[in-house]
């Protein structure tokens, strides 16, 4: 759900814009540290992936379908800084090319959908991994929790902005119930798909799951044990 122009008043839009600029500034530095000169192609392709993954519709409940937002997923796969950059670039392109989300609301959209989802999602993920045993199941579980919390968190952030600068006086309690209620449902779908995606990447290329980098065991050199009775005879049928 991209916020259009005129949904929030000018001061809040400008303030959110400032937050977004600051956040992206920090992310730019962090991403350069994570990826150095590989940043542009890798973050670019990941952004293309996030953009494409948002097209995957999954059935939520009888007849309705939702689609992936991808904040938590991107953060877990490529790290929080690159994740923020990817989701922000996707939002920027959606606003510029598809008119999806207003240009004056771009700051709001980036703050709510890139910064909040990535920070909350990645924070939850790392906290859980710290206490859980270091197994693939706990990575999947933490991804689930990260995504399921990140979506309503973004709805709460939006509600807070709406409380300060909303242009229609709907009681905040009503906005909050509706937004959080809907987004808990979306969050469950997001969480399922995030958890299985992370776990399937972890099975094939564990080195590409940034959030679980400390789970990778160093490669060990295995040599064939010298066997006692010489090489075993191949069995004949």
């Amino acid at each position, binding site marked *: 759900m991209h916020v259009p122009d005129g949904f929030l008043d000018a001061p809040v839009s400008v303030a959110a814009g400032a937050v977004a600029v600051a956040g992206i500034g920090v992310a730019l530095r962090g991403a350069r540290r994570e990826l150095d000169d590989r940043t542009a192609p890798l973050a670019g392709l990941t952004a293309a992936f996030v953009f494409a993954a948002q097209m995957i519709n999954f059935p939520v409940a009888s007849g309705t379908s939702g689609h992936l937002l991808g904040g938590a997923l991107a953060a877990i796969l490529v790290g929080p800084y690159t994740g923020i950059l990817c989701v922000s670039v996707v939002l920027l392109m959606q606003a510029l090319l598809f008119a999806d989300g207003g240009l004056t609301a771009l700051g709001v959209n980036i703050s709510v959908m890139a910064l909040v989802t990535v920070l909350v999602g990645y924070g939850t993920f790392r906290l859980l991994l710290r206490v859980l045993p270091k197994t693939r199941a706990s990575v999947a579980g933490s991804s689930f929790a990260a995504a399921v919390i990140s979506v309503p968190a973004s709805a709460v952030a939006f509600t807070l902005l709406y409380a300060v600068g909303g242009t229609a006086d709907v009681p905040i309690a009503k906005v909050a119930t509706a937004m959080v209620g809907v987004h808990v449902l979306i969050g469950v779908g997001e969480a399922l*798909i995030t958890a299985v995606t992370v776990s399937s990447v972890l099975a094939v290329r564990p080195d590409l799951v940034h959030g679980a980098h400390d789970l990778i065991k160093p490669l060990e050199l295995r040599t064939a044990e010298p066997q006692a009775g010489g090489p075993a005879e191949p069995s004949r049928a």
Partner: protein
Amino acid sequence: MGAGHAVGVTHRLYVPGASPVHRLPPQCKLVAVLAFVLLVVATPRERFWAFAVYALLLAGVAATARIPFRTVAKRVVIEVPFVAFAFLLPFVATGEETAVLGVGLSESGLWGAWNILAKGTLGVVASILLAATTEPRLLLLGIERLRMPQLITQIATFMLRYGDVVAAELGRMKVARASRGFEARDLRATRVLATSAGALFLRSYERGERVHLAMLSRGYDGRMPLTHDVGATAAQWTAAAALPLAAALVTLAAWMTP
């Protein structure tokens, strides 16, 4: 909800042409659209006539750029989720109520709904006109000209260039799933869809690694070479300023009139 994008859509947004609007440098158009939308958002919602004038201004731009009305109308559907929200507002907002067709509706809710519909639609149409008259590649050069950090525009360039490739890969996976009898019916479909997403991520990321190596072998040093520049003359800036200046007069008038 980004419901509007289908596979391989990025190059269908631009409507080729050689109108004066097409020929303006991208950075001028970007600044003009941003200023216009800001002015629209800052207009008091009680001045119905102001919004009508804004709409006429945009219609003027569309006519100059020879963008067919249908093209714009088709893309406005991106707004639908928020239109739905706007229609709910009069029912949930509080405050004084008026009776419309015998149903008690909140007055402030009606104002809120009008506000979102009018300003949101004007913003969407302005963005659609910008994307229809500017090639995506030039749009990126434009934001780079406006001091957007180079890394952001580089990421955006890669996203645009490979967006269609990645989307096509996703499309092929969909065909492969369908030809094996898969149909997303309920939650059990998640496993299959998420495995596809995982495979898609791996393919995208590994493609990124190959692209990076290819770039290195062609002498990439962290900056993209500038193949052609899009400088703007004072005359072009003035031409682009026509829209926001006209809008500024309207905004001013809207604030002054009681």
